[in-house]
């Protein structure tokens, strides 16, 4: 096993898929000559050239719509949103066209695209740049959504997303790009993690912490504190993929621990954790020894101030406090 950053692992996944299929093309703002606003695509333009790595104008509706149109003909565009927060200016293309075109054509068209970029708060950039829309897009049948928390998952999932024949919205995190983690060696073969498969990141017996994205990292830190300071053995389940969703893994963890705290950077109204909570109460009600609790962002637009932004978001302290209310 090697150690790579999340950014490097993603780049390796993109690079491998560019080699794997000539129809894969990367496009977005600053992805080519500038090497990517967050350097995820660094070096790829130099290696693959103008045809495969395409700088676009700041026209999210234009270039994402272009990618959708091209995908109907068989091109496999991987489009970077500099921030997923910019989804709002391309919403018609992302939803009305990408999610619906297969359905409205009675299955005659398909849309094998990936839209990727960071979707997170916590960087003091204010409400316009801090949206976490994974729950929003997972609510549209026709779309798939995933949100990796580790370098290995980032690589394995981006490869699966690119090979998938449906639109996959891939949500990364600027605060994870520099994080290091183990990634399987190249000689161990093609490393692909299927969509729809959760992973237990830490085994436990007393409570299930269920999360995705950076919240998984917070859960792992919280689990350590719970063990060391409170003698509570928490299990951490990383959803990795939001839609398709590994419902079996969620129910299995609940059946094991009988207590659940869901951790989700979304706002409390709706969102991924609201759906997971509904699934647990419907399918594992008798397994529960306590009400399902959630740690979400405090219900207001994302605040700018670095003095309190981390308190608005889920963090290990808030998770520990929430766990202690039901254990």
């Amino acid at each position, binding site marked *: 096993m090697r150690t790579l950053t999340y950014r490097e692992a993603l780049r390796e996944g993109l690079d491998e898929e560019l080699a794997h299929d000539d129809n894969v093309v990367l496009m977005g703002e600053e992805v080519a000559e500038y090497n990517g606003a967050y350097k995820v695509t660094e070096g790829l333009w130099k290696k693959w050239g103008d045809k495969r790595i395409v700088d676009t104008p700041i026209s999210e509706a234009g270039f994402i719509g272009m990618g959708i149109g091209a995908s109907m003909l068989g091109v496999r565009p991987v489009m970077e949103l500099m921030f997923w927060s910019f989804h709002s200016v391309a919403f018609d293309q992302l939803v009305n066209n990408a999610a619906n075109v297969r359905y409205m054509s009675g299955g005659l068209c398909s849309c094998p695209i990936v839209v990727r970029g960071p979707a997170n708060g916590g960087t003091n950039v204010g409400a316009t740049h801090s949206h976490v829309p994974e729950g929003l897009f997972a609510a549209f049948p026709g779309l798939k959504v995933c949100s990796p928390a580790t370098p290995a998952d980032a690589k394995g999932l981006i490869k699966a997303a690119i090979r998938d*024949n449906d639109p996959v919205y891939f949500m990364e995190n600027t605060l994870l790009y520099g994080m290091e983690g183990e990634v399987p060696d190249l000689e161990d073969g093609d490393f692909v993690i299927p969509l729809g498969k959760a992973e237990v990141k830490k085994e436990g017996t007393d409570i299930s912490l269920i999360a995705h994205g950076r919240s998984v990292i917070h859960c792992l830190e919280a689990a350590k504190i719970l063990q060391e300071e409170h003698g509570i053995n928490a299990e951490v389940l990383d959803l990795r993929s939001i839609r398709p969703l590994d419902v079996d893994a969620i129910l299995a963890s609940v059946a094991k621990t009988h207590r659940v705290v869901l951790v989700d950077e979304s706002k409390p109204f709706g969102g991924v954790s609201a759906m997971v909570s509904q699934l647990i109460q419907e399918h594992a009600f008798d397994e529960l020894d306590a009400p399902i609790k959630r740690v979400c962002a405090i219900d207001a637009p994302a605040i700018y101030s670095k003095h309190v932004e981390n308190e608005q978001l889920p963090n290990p302290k808030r998770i520990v406090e929430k766990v202690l209310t039901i254990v």
Partner: protein
Amino acid sequence: MSAFDFASSPINQSLTPERKIELYTQMVRIRRFEQASMKQYAADKMGGFLHLYIGQESVAVGTLSLCGEHDHNITAYRCHAHALASGMSMDECMAEMFGKQTGCSKGKGGSMHFFAPDKNFWGGHGIVAGQTPLGLGLAYGLKYLEREGCCLCFLGDGAVNQGAFHESLNIASLFGIPVVYVIENNGYSMGTSQERSSAFNGCLAQRAEAYAIEWDVVDGSDIYEVRAKANIAMERARKEHKPTVLEIDTYRYYGHSVADANHKVYRTPEDIQAYKDNHDPINVFRNKLLEEGVLNEELINKINAAAKEETAAAVKFAEDSPAPTIADISTDVYWETDNDTEASKIGHHFFS
């Protein structure tokens, strides 16, 4: 009438009498189809909206008559004519509007969402200008895949004020994309006249100058002019990978949709009658073909009767076809689940 006789342009000179009759027949078929649709809509056989193409037939038939096997097209919600002119059958189109399983989109799309990728027709799109980046993408795809051909992307005059269209024009010019944007200017952005909805110099197509794109204005009542000018734009796209914006002046007899009850308020009956007498593209072409000796009254009657018969058969086909089942609601959502792939078996794709 046009000052220039476009019948003499090479692309029209090359038309055989049989091909001219075919173009006339297509226009008549489209009109009969739309008239039947209107009747069936009034009889409550279909739901939703119905955007009729009556009066604009020369645009779809003229432009699409230039498409070869490598050329593609995509349009907005007023899509019936493009579908028929692309070679789709009346049966599958009428059945789609009736919401039947035998419809081109299995009853999942409706009047605004006809598709036939096998005939290079990519829909049928419901959101004003939402199809303009898709048309760009189809043409980008042709270039990326190193295929020949171009993409015709149709839009209404109301769509020129949407941001997505302007983003598309910028990228089309910047990247050298073989797309031809065809503005079907029927003068009304739903119920608001062009003067009250668009700021422009000269004409709407002239906005293309801001993006360094070639443009032209076309009298849509003359199918020869439509073909002559569209051919120049399509050749520019195919051979030079350069976009064009064509503005084809045309006229919509009826409302924005059948639900547009106000259409007689914002236009006078005299306006509509004057158009019918002097500019109706079918009347204009019929008169030309009579002059040319290509058509005669007997043939005209035969074409009309055949179109009526075909339309009546399509209505019967739609009427007799089965409706989709409840189970059909959940198919055609994901490619992977429709194809029962390994990926589709991992995790839940659907929720209740």
